[in-house]
């Protein structure tokens, strides 16, 4: 303030306090001002219930269902490389994903008493972390929804759906980068929803988001919403400038470390600045080239009748997807209509919308890419439910969601707790069915290998077995996935010489044959298919549509 500004007045005595007002002003709930209702006893009970439910629904049967997935194997294999070889991959790391996820997995496994084998095998060890991450995410989802909506009911509904949705259980039990990314992204939102949004909170939120970004890059779709939320939280505060400067800094710090890593390895830019997608540079991998390649990948099969939406996601949980999308549209409408009062709806709606856009925009989408959408849809359903029931009598407010929850759990058609099996009988849904031990099939496969295959055999397999064969004695150092055998020069050319006769065994995982076919556009898997033609089946097991086999090459 310039000197010519009016200085404070001299007072003859201490100023008299203004007359006490008759009534304290009611402090309405406000997301932008950090006015959230306190978590009272009933809220705490609801939260504990949500956490316990999450522990049960995701923890029970965790190691038996679903089947170990290729990608679970890849992430555990890379975590193994971090711990055992101080590298980001046992093969050439080609920047297909940022390494935050498997660095976390490595950090988890490293201090455990038997490291990767603590929970039976490497993927189980990763899955136990997923359980812990799920419980932490339930807490974050509960609190974020409660703070955005001001209602415990909304938070309870969101957490309930997130805990019991078969879609959620299926994908969140698996060791997936998406689950870890979502934890960090929600943590970032949660930090921005503290009562006070100070500089340290902006820094922490930015850092958490940066870790989300280097865990899985698709977190980038949440940036606009998070930046807007930060802006709304700090726009009238004293540390505004510092918070809005340091949030992006903290966000970029982990990303910068990743880029620096590539730079130090001389793998940031492709040799000769060659970004030609038809003719990729051959002498070394490149972060920017891989990024460019990923941006230009397209698939566009999500919404077709045989696409993932209709073939996989809707059959697993059409109720949450449908209700979630409707709720998202309502939340967006309310949020856009009154951004000041309905900031919470705007945040929840745009988070879900941004991720939905990512899924439907036409790039490559894998089955598990839906995982991050689930908590966001649950959040929107919870918030809209809370708003719609806000003026109803408490009996209705509590009773209606309770009834809906009971129907979801008890109606066999939903597949939430019960299901109708192929013989038309009602039974416990797959995710809880004690008679269904899918991963046991993979354990039997491993047992057969250990008994019948010599450790020096040259093996082509899928990644779900990789850690088991490389981390447990006797080691099978020449066992490699068909992905690496088809594309990594070290494996393809040096070990196998790209000749089918150099393969001793092919260990088929579920749907590996389809993967080989899909990955064979350039004929790179031809020599493996030739080996398959020249082999005899020596072991097999099947259950439903799952089939595991072992072939010995003649």
């Amino acid at each position, binding site marked *: 303030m*310039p*000197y010519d500004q009016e200085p404070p007045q001299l*007072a003859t005595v201490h100023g008299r306090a203004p007359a006490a007002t008759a009534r304290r002003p009611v402090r309405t709930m406000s997301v932008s001002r950090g006015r959230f209702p306190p978590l009272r006893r009933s809220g705490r009970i609801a939260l504990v219930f949500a956490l316990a439910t999450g522990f049960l629904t995701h923890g029970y049967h965790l190691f038996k269902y679903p089947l170990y997935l290729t990608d679970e194997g890849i992430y555990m294999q890379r975590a193994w490389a971090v711990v055992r070889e101080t590298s980001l991959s046992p093969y050439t790391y080609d920047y297909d994903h940022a390494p935050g996820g498997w660095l976390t997995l490595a950090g988890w496994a490293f201090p455990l008493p038997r490291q990767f084998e603590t929970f039976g095998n490497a993927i189980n060890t990763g899955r136990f972390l997923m359980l812990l991450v799920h419980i932490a995410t339930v807490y974050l989802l509960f609190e974020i929804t409660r703070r955005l909506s001001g209602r415990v009911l909304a938070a309870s509904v969101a957490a309930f759906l997130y805990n019991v949705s078969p879609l959620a259980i299926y994908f969140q039990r698996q060791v997936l980068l998406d689950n870890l990314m979502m934890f960090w992204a929600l943590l970032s939102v949660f930090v921005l929803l503290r009562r006070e949004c100070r500089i340290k909170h902006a820094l922490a939120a930015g850092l958490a988001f940066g870790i989300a970004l280097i865990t899985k890059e698709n977190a980038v779709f949440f940036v606009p919403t998070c930046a807007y939320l930060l802006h709304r939280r700090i726009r009238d505060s004293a540390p505004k*400038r510092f918070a809005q400067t340091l949030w992006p800094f903290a966000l970029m710090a982990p990303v910068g470390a990743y880029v*620096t890593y590539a730079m*130090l390895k001389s793998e940031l830019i492709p040799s000769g600045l060659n970004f030609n997608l038809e003719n990729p540079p051959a002498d070394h991998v490149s972060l920017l080239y891989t990024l460019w390649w990923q941006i230009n990948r397209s698939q566009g099969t999500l919404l077709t009748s045989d696409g993932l939406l209709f073939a996989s996601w809707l059959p697993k949980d059409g109720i949450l997807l449908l209700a979630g999308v409707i709720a998202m549209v309502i939340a967006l409408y309310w949020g856009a209509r009154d951004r000041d009062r309905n900031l919470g709806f705007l945040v929840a709606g745009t988070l879900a919308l941004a991720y939905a856009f990512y899924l439907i925009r036409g790039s490559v989408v894998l089955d598990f890419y839906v995982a991050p959408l689930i908590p966001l849809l649950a959040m929107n359903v919870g918030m809209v439910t809370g708003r719609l029931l806000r003026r109803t009598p408490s009996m209705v407010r509590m009773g209606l969601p309770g009834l809906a929850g009971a129907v979801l759990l008890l109606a066999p058609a939903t597949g939430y707790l019960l299901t109708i099996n192929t013989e038309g009988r009602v039974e416990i849904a797959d995710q809880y069915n004690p008679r269904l031990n899918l991963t046991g099939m993979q354990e039997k496969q491993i047992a057969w290998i250990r008994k019948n295959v010599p450790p020096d055999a040259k093996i082509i397999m899928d990644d779900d077995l990789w850690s088991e064969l490389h981390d447990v004695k006797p080691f099978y150092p020449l066992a490699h996935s068909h992905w690496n055998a088809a594309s990594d020069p070290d494996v393809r050319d040096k070990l196998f010489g790209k000749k089918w006769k150099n393969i001793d065994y092919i260990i088929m995982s579920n749907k590996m044959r389809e993967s080989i076919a899909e990955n064979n556009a350039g004929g790179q898997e031809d020599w493996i298919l030739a080996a398959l033609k020249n082999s005899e089946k020596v072991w097999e097991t099947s259950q439903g549509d799952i089939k595991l086999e072992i072939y010995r090459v003649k």
Partner: protein
Amino acid sequence: MILVYAALVTISVLLTVQSAHVLYMMLYTWDQPKAEKRARAPERFLPPQYSFSVLLPARHEEDVIQTTIDRVVHADYPTELLQVFVICSVDDTGTIAEAREKIDELRRAGLRNVDVVVFDDKPVNKPHGLNAALPHTSHDVVTIFDAEDDIHPAIFNLVNTIMVDDGVNVVQAGVQLMNFQSRWYSALNVLEYFFWFKSRLHYHAHYGSVPLGGNTVFFKRDLLVRLGGWDDRNLTEDADIGLRLSGMGERVRVVYDDRYVTKEETPPTLGQFIKQRTRWSQGFMQTLSKGTWKQMPTRQQRWLAFYVLAFPHGQALLGFYLLFSVGMILVLKVPVVIALVSYLPVLLLTAHFLTAVAGLYEFTEAHGLEASPKAVLRMAIAWYPYQILLAYAAVRAMRRQLLGRHDWEKTQHVGAHRIQPGKSDSHAV
């Protein structure tokens, strides 16, 4: 080679932690609403209760001394409760003449509360001058302003109110360099003051270990007398007396309100800047080796005092490391993980720079000035050389300390913060 790696990782981690802590202190009041509230000036002033003796140590300040005297005697405070002493050594005839001329002029206008104290003994430095003037003071509170200071007219009301309200015996009010566009290093120098007085000093006050500033600091006179005045062999007598007071358990109230800061200028030349910074660094080194800080009652106080006083040593080492690190980037080939760890301090350096940019906009907005992208660009270019400059001054201080040279290298003042009519009205009276 493993030893080199270990050293590299250790130094990087230590630098990162230290740098993060400094960043925390820089942002302390912005980040802590309670601290910000404590730092604020009262919105209403109490009637004058305390009388003030103002000490104006001056050496070769012919250009600025008259304006400074004028500002003090015309402050918004009853004349009978103010007395002003211009302090000069006997050889500084120019400043003495200028001061006497002003005093005569004031006397003609009926103001008789200004005098000149001339001392003729050694050493010729600020603390000795202050000690020479202290016996002449008779008012309740003794305060110091530098000869080039632009004080706010309400500063005495402000301090009077705080002393009455809070019952404290020592108040440090804000000092702010203003001319952020004068030289290439000015913006960074200005921001150092901004973060120091607006934030970091409050952190020190909170933990009871305050290296006080050299001016706009107010002491109850009897406390100063009990303390025996200033250490006239110390080049940072202000920091020294602050830590001595903290050691006595004396609570220091720090107040920084953009409206009431005392305005100063950055040193006019690079040479002057280096001399000033060398003096401060050497003063901290002297205070550290003097060991008074060891008598502080709590470990936390001692640690904080040690941390501040030892900083110039660290800065000197950092200077060598900065140069060494450039060499390492070009020559040394280390594993990627170690290289990534060694980049951590660079990350923090970036955070410091971004904080400084935000601080520049905070500073200019608070004082009715305008920051521009050009100013930010200048800052970005100056950033690394400025760190080297600070390190150089610290090395120079270390050298002087080792050689036993403790003479006072005076900083020249030209009044660059006193804007001429027709220019910015940021602090026009």
